[in-house]
């Protein structure tokens, strides 16, 4: 599966999308879901929680294992996706459509510190060797 060019990526395998309203949607990458396998449980951060960049803020659990999700940038949680919580398998079906939560970023420019698609692809390739 190709890595969408319009998203930004963290080394901990989250993706970020800057929305028209200035919020940032966050999910986990296709590569991350592929490593974890069938998703069965999602725990999102509560709305209103302020997150530091790199802070543990959510959990995704597959049949196999639990994995932490980290805030790719600093910001306040403004939405949590109840649909994904109710249907964790939607992350397996389309990881880039299944956003988990939205942040109001402290600094939108922080997104520039994340990887673009090409860099993330190279990062994934290097990790799997």
């Amino acid at each position, binding site marked *: 599966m190709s890595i969408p060019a319009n998203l930004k990526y963290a080394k901990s395998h989250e993706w970020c999308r800057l929305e028209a309203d200035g919020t940032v949607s966050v999910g986990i990458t296709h590569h991350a879901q592929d490593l974890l*396998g*069938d998703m*069965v*449980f999602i*725990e999102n951060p509560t709305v209103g929680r302020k997150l530091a960049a790199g802070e543990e803020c959510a*959990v995704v*659990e597959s*049949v*196999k294992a639990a994995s932490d999700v980290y805030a790719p940038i600093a910001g306040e949680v403004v939405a949590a996706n109840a649909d994904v919580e109710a249907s964790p398998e939607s992350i*397996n079906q389309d990881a880039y459509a299944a956003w988990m939560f939205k942040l109001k970023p402290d600094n939108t420019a922080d997104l520039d510190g994340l990887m673009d698609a090409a860099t993330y692809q190279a990062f994934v390739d290097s990790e799997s060797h």
Partner: protein
Amino acid sequence: MLKQTPLNARHREANAKLVDFSGWEMPIHYGSQIEEHHIVRTDVGMFDVSHMLPVDLKGDGARDFLRRLVANNVDKLQSTGKALYTCMLHEGGGVVDDLIVYFLNESWFRLVVNAGCADKDIAWMETQRDRLAPGLALTPRRDLAMIAVQGPKAAEKLWQAMPGTRDLAAPLKPFSAVVVGDMFIARTGYTGEDGFEIMLPAKAAPFFWQALLEAGVKPCGLGARDTLRLEAGMNLYGQDMDASTTPLESGLAWTVDLKSERDFIGKDALLRLPRSRQLVGLKLLDRGVLRGHQKVLTSQGEGEITSGSFAPTLNASIALARVPAGVNLGETVEVEIRDKRLRALVVKYPFVRNGKALV
């Protein structure tokens, strides 16, 4: 370097995700572990379990040796092909391994042991053999592959793939086996469904696997095997019991014969040790997933989950947990998961049998 089974190339062709399992390169799934789980509950699936080791015990006095070696009573094995699930204990009462013993005749029993314990088991059995019955031959059968065909349609599909097996294998009752040419067909499994475990020469395994594929049997990985066995309430060595736990505190009292006069290795310890812990089933009441090693808080003190997972048939999370004696069915306990305490109900297991939820 990981060991490979004779079916390794087949797994690669089928795009299996391969992982290190006790030093063996084994398929964890072929796409979706949950789909594979459901296939076995509702239709039929097959597993490469060639990493498990059959060991042939041959010679005069084989039965007497097994009377000493294992905790269950092999005198229950009276008809040809009958199988017995048992633990093999050390002197302290802890479990060296759990295994199935098949009775072929008075001078031939076949034992099937876990992959991760195989070397240790062979060494243990040889030591005991040298001490108790030096005339017996113990032969590890690494020349055999093993395929488990499991699910309500296992029999139908097996006859379709291998019509020649039907006459001898169709009458098999659960927990019995028959030799068909160079194949050994047992009506056993690790899923809680009807099915067969078939041992056959390694070089014949890819052909047999292909015939099953063509009959519509879906390959399933060790991931599904684990959720199936947990739902079926079957112990996994290394998680639910090991050398530091006795079968009596591992939910396996039903496999230990303490009634007869027979003396077996570990019996004294079992009679002497206090029975302060027990294995119970848990069903999570709150949202989350139970996992091994999570702490369990009960009315009688702390315990620990030994195996936990999401259970696809139940669409809930279940576990086996070792808790203090005195915790009763129906009690609500708390499980520490990350920074939370979630509620779980103590339930009877198996959780699922023959496709039906029991909790």
